[in-house]
C-alpha cells in the first residue's frame, strides 16, 4: 500500500493537534503504522499551525514531501492556501469556512481576502476542492469549539483515508473527556453527513 499523506493546516487554537491525534489513534486501531507531526510552544500562540499525518504499512518520516499530499484538511482558508505546495492535481482540498483575519493584515487596515480569490488560487494546484460550513455545523452541534471534529467527520466521509468510520468513533471515545463526547460525536456526524449530502466523487 502506498503511504497515505495528509496535511492539517490552520491557526493555533483551532484544535488541529487534537484532530491529528484522533486521526493517528484511529490509524493505530486500524492496524497501520502512522506518524503525526506537531509543533508546540510559541508557534501555537495564534500563529499558523501545521500538522502532518502519514499512514501506511511502514512509515519513517513524519513530514511530507511537497506535492505528495492526498488530502489537505484546511481549518482556515488563508492557512489552507499557505500549504498548497503539498498539493498536486490529485489532492483533495477540504476547506473550513472559519476565517480568522491575521492581525498583521488588520493592523495594515486591510480586511480578509475574498473567499473566491483564495479558492481560485487553490484551484491552480487541484480542482478537487470542497468548502465545509464548519462554523455553522459546529454551532449546530452545540459549540463553536468543535469545528475540528466537524472537519474530521467530513474527512471520514470523503473516503480518502484508509480508516473506517467506526475507528474514528473509537478514537473520539478514547481521546475526549466524557462530558464533551456527545457534542463531538454530533459534530463528527454533521461533518460526515454534509459531505455525503454533496455526493461528490472525489
Amino acid at each position, binding site marked *: 500500500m502506498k503511504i497515505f499523506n495528509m496535511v492539517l493546516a490552520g491557526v493555533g487554537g483551532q484544535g488541529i493537534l487534537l484532530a491529528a491525534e484522533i486521526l493517528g489513534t484511529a490509524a493505530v486501531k486500524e492496524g497501520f503504522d*502512522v506518524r503525526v507531526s506537531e509543533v*508546540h*510552544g510559541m*508557534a501555537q500562540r495564534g500563529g499558523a499551525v501545521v500538522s502532518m499525518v502519514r499512514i501506511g504499512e511502514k512509515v519513517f518520516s513524519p513530514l511530507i514531501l511537497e506535492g505528495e499530499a492526498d488530502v489537505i484538511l484546511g481549518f482556515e482558508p488563508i492557512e489552507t*492556501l499557505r500549504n498548497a505546495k503539498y498539493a498536486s492535481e490529485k489532492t483533495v482540498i477540504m476547506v473550513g469556512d472559519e476565517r480568522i483575519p*491575521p492581525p498583521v493584515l488588520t493592523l495594515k487596515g486591510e480586511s480578509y481576502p475574498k473567499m473566491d480569490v483564495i479558492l481560485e488560487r487553490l484551484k491552480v494546484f487541484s480542482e478537487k476542492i470542497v468548502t465545509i460550513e464548519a462554523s455553522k455545523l459546529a454551532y449546530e452541534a452545540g459549540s463553536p469549539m468543535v469545528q475540528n471534529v466537524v472537519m474530521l467527520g467530513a474527512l471520514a466521509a470523503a473516503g480518502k483515508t484508509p480508516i473506517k468510520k467506526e475507528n474514528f468513533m473509537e478514537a473520539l471515545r478514547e481521546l475526549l473527556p466524557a462530558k464533551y463526547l456527545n457534542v463531538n460525536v454530533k459534530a463528527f456526524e454533521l461533518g460526515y453527513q454534509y459531505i455525503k449530502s454533496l455526493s461528490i466523487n472525489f
Partner: protein
Amino acid sequence: MPNPKSLLEDKPGKRVLLLGNEAIARGVLEAGIGVVTTYPGTPASEIGDTISAIAREAGIYMEYSVNEIVAVEVAGGAANCGVRALAAMKHVGLNVASDALITLAYVGVRGGMVVVTADDPECYSSQNEQDSRLYALLSNLPCLEPSNPQEAKDMTIYAAEISEKLELPVLLRTTTRVSHTRAPVVLGKISKPNLKGEFIRDPKHLVMVPANSRPRHDVLLQKVERAKETSEASPYNNVARRGKDKEYGVISSSSAYNYAVEALDLLELDFDVLKLGMTHPLPEKMIGQFLMEHDKVIVIEELEPYLELHVKATAKDLGLKTEIYGKIGHQYFLRSGELSPRKVLEGLLKITGKKPPISFESLDKKYNEAVKDLPLRPPILCAGCPHRASFYIIRKVAGEKAIYPTDIGCYALGFAPPLNVGDILICMGAGLGTAQGISKTTGAPTIAIIGDSTFFHAGVSRLLNAVYNKHRIVVAVLDNFTTAMTGHQPHPGTGVTGMQTATERIAIEKVAEGCGVKLVKVVNPFNFKEAEKALKEALAFPETSLVVFRAPCALLLLREKRQMGVEVIPFRVNEKCTNCLACIKLLGCPALALTEAKTVAINENLCVGCGLCAYVCPYKAIEQSKGSGGKTGENI
C-alpha cells in the same frame, strides 16, 4: 494519549500511539527511574508534564526545578545515592545546566542518570538552533539519538542501563521531530522504581578540588574508552539497510535517517545505510569498516556536521580515499534550519546526478505566485492576554525614548507591532542583565521585562547585581501565575509542586524586597490607572525598582471559567464607532478585525471580555454585550 494515567497500564506488547515525549515518560516507568526533574521548554515539556500527572501513582519523585542546572544537580545528587534519575530540558536549558553537567562527568554516578536534551532545529519555539551533540564532545558523556518515539522509549531504558554500567550520566538527544511526533509504540514491562538512596562518603571521587579533579579527568577518559566498546556493540548502531549498489553508502542519525531512507526509496537508490543511534563516542571501527566497503559515503544529519567531521577523521586515520559528501565544502546539506524530505532529496539528487521525481522548480514558481501577497501569521499574544494590557501601559507611560530589554516567554511577542515593547532578547534572564549595561551607558530610562517563571529561573541573581551596583532600571515582572508558553507548568510563585501537591508560594515582591529593592509595587494591569501610576513612580525612582504586573494567564482563566460554567461575555462595537481604528492600531488583539466593509468588528469566538479595547477607545464605542447579533469567524 487519552489520559496520562493510561501510561501506567502494565501491558507489555500493547501498541499505543504516543508522542515522542510521552514515550520517554513511559521509558522512565520501564527503566525504574525514581527521580525525574525538569524545567519546561519546548520541545521537551511533555516529558515532565506526563510524569507529573502520574508520579504519585508510579511511586516516582518528580519536580519542576527552578531551572535546568538545579534539575541536573537534584538528579545528579539522587544518582550519586544509587537511585536512577532523569533530568529533561530543551537544548538551551542544557547551556544553563552545563556547568554542573561537565564536572558531574568527572564525579560520575552510581544510579543510572539520563539527561534529555531536546533540540529545536528551525527555532520553532527557541532563540537559537544549537546542536546539543557537541555537548557530548565537550563533556565526554555518552550520547544517544533516537529517530522515532519507539526508540525514544527504548533508548531511555538503554541510557539508564549504560549509565549505570559506565558510571556516567548519559545524554539522550532528541529533536522537535522526535519529541513532537506521534507514532505507535510497543510497550514493555514496568519496573518498580527504587527511591531509597544511600550516600557513601568518598571525597576523592566526589569532591572536585583540583587535586581530586586531575585524576578524575583521566578516569573519565578511561570511561570514554569503555564507552567506545559499548558503542561498537550497541544494538542502535548498525547497517539498518543493505543495498545492492555498493558504490555509495549513507551514514545518518535521528530524524535525518527517516528522510534519508524515504528519499532513497523514492529515487530507487539501493544503498547501504549505516544508522547511528549512539553518537558519542562513535563506533569508529564500525564506521571504518563501512568506509572501506564503499567508494563514496554520504553523511546525512541535521544541524552541525558532527558525524561528518568524525567520519572524515576516521577516513584520514585509516588512510582511506573514500569520498565523503555532507555539509562541509560543497554544502549538499545545510547546517542551518531543519531538514525535510525535500532538502534531503535535493542533496541526494545533487550528489548522485539523478533526475527529480517532480519538478520542484515549477512547483515553487506556482506556489510563490499563489502566496505572493498572502499575509503572514506569526504567533501573537492571545486575546485577553494580560501582557497586552501591561505592554500598552508600559509603552504609554515610558514611550519611545525608553529602552526595553526583554526575556524568554510568551511576552517576548510584545516586541512586535503595535505593542513594540522588546528591544533586545537573548536568553533566560538576559533582559535584566543587559538592561544594566544599557542603562549605565545610555542613561536612558530602561525597563527590563521578565515573566514570573523566568524571574525565578534566572532573574534573582541579576536583580541582586542591579541593586548592589545601583543600576537605575525598572524591572517589570509580568506575573501570570504560570509558565504559560510551555503549557502552564507550576513555578515557585504558583503554590503547586510537580507532585501536584500544595506548597507555600513564594511572592515575587517579597523576593525583590529581600534582594534590597527599595521601590516594589504590585499592580493588576487591568486596573489601568493604578498600573500607570505605579510605573510612573518606578521610573522616577533613582535606583533599581520593580513593578509586578499581576493577572492570570487568559488561557487559564478561560479554562477555569468554562469548567465552572461562568459565562464569558464578549465585547461588541456599537454605533458610536467612527472607525478611527485606535483599538486595532494600539493593541493588535486577534479578536479585533475589519469586515469586508472595513468597519471594526470583534470576533466573539475569540473575545474573552478583558475590556482593554473598550478602555483605549476614544469614543466609548466598545461595550460588553450579551445576546445574538455578534460577529464570528464566518461572517466577519
